[in-house]
C-alpha cells in the first residue's frame, strides 16, 4: 500500500482486513468487547466428523461497542475460514446477538446491530443445521427490527454475501456495499453448474460484477449506499444508515412493495446490467465498471433510488 501523500492517515482496506480487525476498527477506539471470544473455544461439533480443521470462533466475531458514542452490537464474519459459511455455532452466535438487540430495544433503549457480511452461505458439511441457522437468523433480524432495532448490513469482503447470507441481507434495515461486495443468493458457479455456461459464465468476471457487484446493487436500489473500500468509509456509512433507516411498520412494507413493483416495471425486460444502468439514467453505462469510487458515488447520488424510504 502506498503511504498517504497529503498527511492524512490512510484508512485500512475493508477487503484486506480480518473480521476481528473490521469489527474493532469500525467502532470507536477501545470500545469493542467480544462475546464468546476464541478463548471460549465454542467450535463446530460437526467438522471433526469430516476430519476438517475447526476455528476457535467458528468464523464469526460477535460483540458490542460504541459507534460515534452510541452503543451498538456488531457481528463480523471471517470470509477466509470456510468461505465465511454459516454452521450451527456460527449461526447461533449471530442469533444470540440479534435476540439481545431485540430485548434491549424492547426494554426502551434501541440497540442497532451491524452485520459485517462475508459469506458464501450455508456450510454444506453442516447441512440442515446450517440451513436452520439461516432461517433462525432471518427470524431474529425481523424480531429485532419489530422491537425497534436498526439492523445494518455491510458488504465488502472476499466471499461477498451469497446463499443464505444474501437472504439475510434482504431482511436488514439497510445495506452499504463496496465495489468488492457482491450480493446474491445463487453464486456464479452455482448458476453455471445448474443452468449451463450459456446461461451464466462464472469465469466472466465483468458479467459477475455487473450482475451481483456493489455498483450494480446500488444502481438497482438493492443497497442504500455505495462506499469506497476503506474501514473509515464503512464506518461513516454505518453511522448514516442507523440514522436514516426506516422504522419497521406496515407503511414501510407497503412502500417497499410499491418500490419493488416499480423496479420490475422499469427493469423487468433488461437482459444485462448495462441495460439496467442505461434505463436507470446512466448516460454511458460502459464507463461504470472502471469508474473510481468517488465518481461513482456522485453518479449514484445524482441518479437517486432508495427514495421511497424502504428497503
Amino acid at each position, binding site marked *: 500500500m502506498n503511504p498517504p501523500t497529503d498527511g492524512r492517515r490512510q484508512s485500512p482496506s475493508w477487503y484486506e482486513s480480518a473480521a*476481528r480487525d473490521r469489527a474493532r476498527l469500525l467502532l470507536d477506539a*477501545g470500545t469493542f468487547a467480544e462475546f464468546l471470544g*476464541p478463548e471460549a473455544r465454542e467450535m463446530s461439533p460437526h467438522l471433526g466428523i469430516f476430519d476438517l480443521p475447526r476455528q*476457535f470462533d467458528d468464523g464469526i466475531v460477535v460483540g458490542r461497542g460504541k459507534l460515534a458514542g452510541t452503543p451498538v452490537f456488531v457481528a463480523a464474519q471471517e470470509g477466509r475460514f470456510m468461505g465465511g459459511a454459516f454452521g450451527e455455532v456460527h449461526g447461533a452466535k449471530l442469533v444470540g446477538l440479534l435476540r439481545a438487540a431485540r430485548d434491549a430495544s424492547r426494554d426502551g433503549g434501541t440497540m442497532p446491530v451491524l452485520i459485517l457480511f462475508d459469506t458464501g452461505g450455508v456450510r454444506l458439511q453442516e447441512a440442515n443445521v446450517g440451513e436452520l441457522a439461516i432461517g433462525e437468523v432471518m427470524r431474529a433480524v425481523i424480531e429485532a427490527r419489530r422491537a425497534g432495532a436498526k439492523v445494518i448490513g455491510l458488504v465488502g469482503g472476499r466471499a461477498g454475501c451469497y446463499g443464505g447470507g444474501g437472504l439475510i441481507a434482504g431482511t436488514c434495515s439497510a445495506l452499504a456495499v463496496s465495489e468488492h461486495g457482491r450480493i446474491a443468493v445463487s453464486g456464479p458457479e452455482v448458476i453455471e453448474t445448474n443452468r449451463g455456461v450459456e446461461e451464466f459464465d462464472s469465469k466472466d468476471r465483468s458479467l459477475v460484477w455487473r450482475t451481483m457487484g456493489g455498483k450494480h446493487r446500488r444502481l438497482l436500489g438493492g443497497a442504500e449506499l455505495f462506499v469506497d473500500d476503506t474501514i473509515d468509509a464503512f464506518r461513516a456509512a454505518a453511522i448514516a444508515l442507523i440514522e436514516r433507516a426506516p422504522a419497521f411498520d406496515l407503511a414501510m412494507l407497503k412502500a417497499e412493495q410499491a418500490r419493488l413493483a416499480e423496479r420490475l416495471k422499469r427493469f423487468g425486460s433488461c437482459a444485462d446490467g448495462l441495460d439496467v444502468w442505461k434505463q436507470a439514467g446512466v448516460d454511458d453505462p460502459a464507463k461504470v465498471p472502471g469508474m473510481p469510487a468517488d465518481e461513482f458515488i456522485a453518479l449514484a447520488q445524482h441518479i437517486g433510488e432508495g427514495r421511497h424510504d424502504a428497503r
Partner: protein
Amino acid sequence: METLSYRHTAARRAAGARPMAIVGVVASGNLEVLVERVLPGSDCQVEISTPVTGFAKVWEAVITDFVERRSPGGLRLSINDGGARADTVSLRLAQAVRLIEEDGR
C-alpha cells in the same frame, strides 16, 4: 485429525500483562494461534490440532526453535492448523507472542 502437545520450560516469563491474543485464520496453508497467559512460572505449552498427519517431528523442531527464540514463559499456545508450512507456523507463533506482549488491549 492429529493432536500434538509439547511442554517446555522457557528461559524467562513473557513480557506484558494481556491475558489473551489471537493471530491468523484457519485457511489453506494458514493457521490460527490462540495464546493465553495461564501457566505458572516459565512453563510453556503448545497444543496443535492438524488435519495433516505424520509431521510430528517437524512440529517438534519448529516449537523447540520457537521456545528458544521467543522465551514464551507462562503462555499456553493453541493451534488450529490448515496445513501451513513450517515457516508460516514460525511466523504466526512469533506474531502471537509479540501481540500478547503489547501494552493495552
